[in-house]
């Protein structure tokens, strides 16, 4: 009986070790979104290209799409931009852009210079939609289903690794590549 008790610290260390090793692969800056499974928040905002064209939450419905929050002041957005272009052209992914707390002229210039992967761009100058979405750092990419319900959020750059994950999740919702 006494002998077994001697192993308690040993087992304790093993358990702690396993937890620590697991902890190494976790990213504490990645927060779970509070919006998963909820409808896209209601909004009424103009397009980046045309100040008179107004979009609302109903425009988010209709297909399984990506919603990408971006801005010209965000370096990572620039990094992922070419990958978004690739997704739009080669895979036929429909991406809706939310231009977050940005300048319209700069945003337009950016889309011209780096190409435009978005089916349309919402101009969220004050960041009100961003606040309702719980955006805490651009870029953020959401998967929105046909009913306009938010299904997933990725914070940070979209690249091949991230896309592999997003693709599986979108396919589960009934999306298929072009």
């Amino acid at each position, binding site marked *: 009986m006494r002998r077994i008790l001697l192993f308690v610290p040993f087992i304790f260390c093993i358990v702690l070790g396993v937890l620590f090793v697991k902890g190494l692969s976790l990213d504490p*800056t990645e*927060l779970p979104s*509070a919006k998963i499974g909820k409808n896209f928040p209601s909004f009424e905002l103009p397009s980046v290209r045309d100040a008179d064209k107004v979009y609302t939450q109903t425009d988010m419905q209709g297909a399984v799409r990506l919603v990408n929050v971006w801005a010209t002041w965000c370096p990572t957005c620039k990094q992922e931009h070419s990958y978004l272009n690739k997704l739009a052209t080669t895979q036929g992914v429909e991406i809706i852009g939310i231009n977050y707390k940005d300048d319209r002229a700069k945003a337009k210039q950016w889309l011209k210079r780096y190409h435009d992967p978005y089916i349309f761009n919402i101009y969220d100058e004050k960041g009100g939609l961003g*606040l309702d*979405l719980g955006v*805490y*750092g651009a870029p953020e990419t959401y998967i929105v289903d046909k009913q306009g319900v938010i299904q997933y959020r990725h914070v940070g750059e979209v690249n091949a690794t991230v896309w592999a994950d997003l693709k599986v999740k979108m396919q589960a919702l009934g999306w298929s590549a072009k």
Partner: protein
Amino acid sequence: MRLTGILIAWLLISFNAFAVIDTFEFDSQEQRARFAMLSEELRCPKCQNQNLAGSNSGIALDLRTELHRMVISGQSTEQIKAFMVERYGEFVLYKPSVNSLTYVLWYGPFVLLGLGFILVIVMIKQRGSNRAQQRTQTPAKNTVDREHQQRIKDLLDKNK
């Protein structure tokens, strides 16, 4: 000499300024106090170990502005917290609410404390019973010792 030492020591002491200085205006002291309390208690989603009051990041400023707007418009503390949680999740509360997800967080330490107490009591009891056992064993031990002493004595005597 000593005076200069003290003066230098004074220069080396610095007081950290934790709050960011904003120019928010309030209608009453109550609102000011509530704003201060909430911005201390709400966490910045971007800079994770800082509260809204202590962070200079863009999102913290946005949330402070939003907080100010809500405080001024007379929303209750609960309403404001619900607003933030709805958008940023439980994460934004430095003092998480008590629910099935946070039971371990709130009550875990007390459970561990209880386990510690039980362990200490068990150890004390065991030690007590060990000592009692020793006491009952002493006479027997003494006879062994006596035999040993006798043998040593005999051996020593033989060598004489």
